[in-house]
């Protein structure tokens, strides 16, 4: 009996360990890998919060304004990648590449997972988290090839 319990706990702990590799929450649960986005817009505000920062971007297309809420990594990973409160101030025009959420109604805002952000000076920085199961699109410099 005890032997069996040891075996079961070994299996459970191993599966939990392997689950952990998929980070905070898995990409595929919320975002659509077949819906890549490439938006250019003005930063409205940045929610500089754990466990995920959110960048609100206002995109103007044919006179119609849409607000995008783009999920980034943790404040810690953003700072490490060179994105801080100074570089992503409200009003900055940025280009964001990423993937839209599975629900695409954009109510009240469009939601997306951000992969990289390009600043006005041409600097392109990875803004996501590594190992979330997002498509291997080359945005993450630490990605295993």
């Amino acid at each position, binding site marked *: *009996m*005890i032997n069996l*319990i040891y075996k079961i706990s070994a299996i459970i702990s191993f599966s939990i360990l392997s689950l952990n590799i998929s980070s*905070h*929450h898995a990409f595929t*649960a*919320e975002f659509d890998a077949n819906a890549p986005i490439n938006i250019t817009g003005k930063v409205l505000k940045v929610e*500089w*919060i*754990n*466990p995920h920062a959110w960048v609100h971007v206002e995109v103007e297309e044919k006179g119609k304004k849409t607000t995008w*809420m783009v999920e980034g990594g*943790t*404040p*810690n990973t953003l*700072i490490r990648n060179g994105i801080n409160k100074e570089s992503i101030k409200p009003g900055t025009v940025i280009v964001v590449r990423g993937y839209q*959420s599975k*629900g695409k*109604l954009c*109510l*009240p*805002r469009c*939601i997306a997972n951000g992969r990289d952000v390009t600043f006005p000076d041409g600097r392109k920085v990875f803004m996501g988290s590594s190992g979330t199961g997002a498509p291997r699109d080359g945005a993450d410099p630490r990605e295993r090839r």
Partner: protein
Amino acid sequence: MMEFIEWLASTSSSVALRESLYLYPWIESAHVLFIAIFFGTLLFVDLRLSGYVFKELSITEMNKKVLPLTIIGFILMCLTGFLLFYAIPIRNYQNLFFRIKIILMIIAGLNAYYFHRTMNRESKTWDKDSHIPFVMKFSAVSSLLLWSLVIISGRMIAYNWFDCDRQPQSEIINFLTSCIVETELYESLDGI
């Protein structure tokens, strides 16, 4: 309630915590570690009480050795858990899984209270006995099941499927999460 949660979110330590670079991930990791200590030791207490393992050990002896660890794990788990809530109060308060988790914790707490009260009173009569009363076995197994569900729903808080900023949701979901949805949003939905 919502005003209190909003006030909580506006306190400076809550802001510092949610914007922190290191503290939040450290608390998050510590929370998981203390869950492991709490649930890992609880597993043995409950399995012994349901009569599956360590039958040669008396229940009192087992509890004396293992239960203090469970209690330490529980206190630290609650403390770190509260800090995680305190860092992002509004999102957590309006999170469906968080609410399910709180309800499950209340049930698990009542179960534990009933269980320990009965055990302290009567366990001497069946301490080394292989015939543990059925209600006690049932209570021990329920405890494991309930705490497992608490951990699972806690894990699910990370997912935003039912979050307020993700509309449209069915009315029942918005009711259960106390989401306030602007009526204009539903008017604009008619156009789609």
